[in-house]
């Protein structure tokens, strides 16, 4: 029987496995995709330093190799069951049943499907992208001039905050907390690749909560002249030439506005992954009203869940940045270690 089974091979899962292995525990990682790194594989640069995301993946690939971690790729978890004597039985799509003394849920998040916000025109109008699409575009750029999906040099680009966040109508009442700073980062990046273009952000509130975030926001204003418009987008329509027409109220001017743009970027929020609901069913795991796993103690036990022996690392408990994820994954090692020492297994 293994000590810890880790579900998810993103940075949370890998970091948790590294820390647990360093404490002398036997770990196995189960990952549904064909590579490790999770969502980070789709990202170009990270806030607030513009560090390349692949650098972080390379670091974890090397750490994985050094420790010879056991990872099962292309493996889906079907159910987690806590059987008698506190042993977990985890059924996977490979017809392998893992038995472990503890489980770490590092199954992450999924991005909001922007098609659900039909009035914003994603997948209806060519020049409407999501923040994730833009990162992929940046990744493929390789020094080439930036073009819109309809192959034009953009003159006006808009970033729309809170798409699928703080929005009862899309079922997500909570703040995704990272989209604000991601929008600022992408707006700066956009100005770097298209210095002639006007870039604006439509926001409800700007939540620059982390170290270096406010500085980035100020840089976007001062150095890059990104325009910040306080108002939530209501709807988008397309002109005959493929440009977009936005309807927003500039709430500070207290006037409804029409804005023309060549390209629109929707800042999609983070949602609990579908698997979280699946795990919830199979082992009576408690989730919060935002559908993410509910930490057993919000302040001093955020790695623990209501099920003893079942722990979380990273965004399975809510939206989290890369550095918060890494820290949360490091702390889970201590929580698991303490649990295994005190349990009678």
């Amino acid at each position, binding site marked *: 029987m293994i000590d810890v089974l880790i579900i998810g091979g993103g940075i949370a899962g890998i970091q948790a496995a590294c820390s647990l292995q360093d404490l002398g525990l036997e770990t196995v990682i189960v990952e549904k995709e064909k590579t490790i790194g999770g969502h980070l594989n789709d990202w170009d640069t990270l806030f607030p330093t513009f560090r390349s995301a692949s650098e972080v993946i390379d670091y974890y690939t090397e750490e994985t190799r050094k420790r010879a971690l056991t990872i099962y790729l292309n493996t889906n978890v079907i159910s987690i069951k806590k059987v008698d004597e506190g042993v977990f039985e985890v059924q996977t799509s490979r017809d392998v049943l893992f038995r472990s003394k503890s489980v770490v849920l590092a199954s992450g998040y999924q991005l909001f499907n922007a098609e659900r916000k039909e009035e914003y025109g994603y997948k209806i109008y060519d020049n409407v992208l999501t923040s994730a699409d833009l990162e992929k575009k940046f990744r493929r750029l390789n020094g080439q001039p930036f073009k819109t999906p309809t192959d034009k040099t953009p003159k006006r680009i808009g970033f729309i905050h*809170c798409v699928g966040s*703080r*929005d*009862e*109508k899309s079922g997500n009442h909570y703040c995704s907390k990272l989209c604000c700073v991601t929008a600022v980062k992408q707006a700066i990046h956009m100005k770097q690749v298209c210095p002639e273009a006007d870039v604006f952000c439509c926001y*409800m*509130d700007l939540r620059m909560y982390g170290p270096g975030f406010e500085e980035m926001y100020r840089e976007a204003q001062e150095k890059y002249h990104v325009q910040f418009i*306080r*108002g*939530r*987008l*209501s*709807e988008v329509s397309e002109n005959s030439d493929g440009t977009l027409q936005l*309807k*927003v*109220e*500039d*709430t500070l001017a*207290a*006037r*409804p*506005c029409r804005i023309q743009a060549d390209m629109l970027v929707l800042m999609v929020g983070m949602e609990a992954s579908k698997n979280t609901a699946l795990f919830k069913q199979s082992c009576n795991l408690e989730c919060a009203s935002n559908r993410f796993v509910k930490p057993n103690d919000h302040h001093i036990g955020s790695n623990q869940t209501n099920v003893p022996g079942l722990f979380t690392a990273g965004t399975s408990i809510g939206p989290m940045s890369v550095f918060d994820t890494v820290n949360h994954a490091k702390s889970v090692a201590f929580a698991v270690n303490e649990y295994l020492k005190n349990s009678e297994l």
Partner: protein
Amino acid sequence: MRNFGFATTKSRTVDYSKIDTRLIGYILENEPTFNACLSCGSCTAICSAGNLTNFNIRKLSLLIRLGELEKIHTEIDKCMLCGKCLLECPRGINTRNVIMLIKKGLTIFDIKDQE
């Protein structure tokens, strides 16, 4: 009062301890969701009446919160009750009911426009 030959203007400062809360109190009592407004302005951006007139429902709700009721009557009559704001509100506020309550409240408290 003695005429000094010049006039002073009334203070523009909002005194939060002296706000006329009759109308806002009535609305919140009957439509508590109105408490959740973020002032994001999506109601105003989508507003059919706001596209044709200077009607601004978000600004109006702020004025009501501040008890500045001098021009509410004429303004609220510009609303066509189309309900697009209801579909749009990210906080799920029943905006149409809010407007109906404003109209009712103006009658109940006999609030009329002032010049």
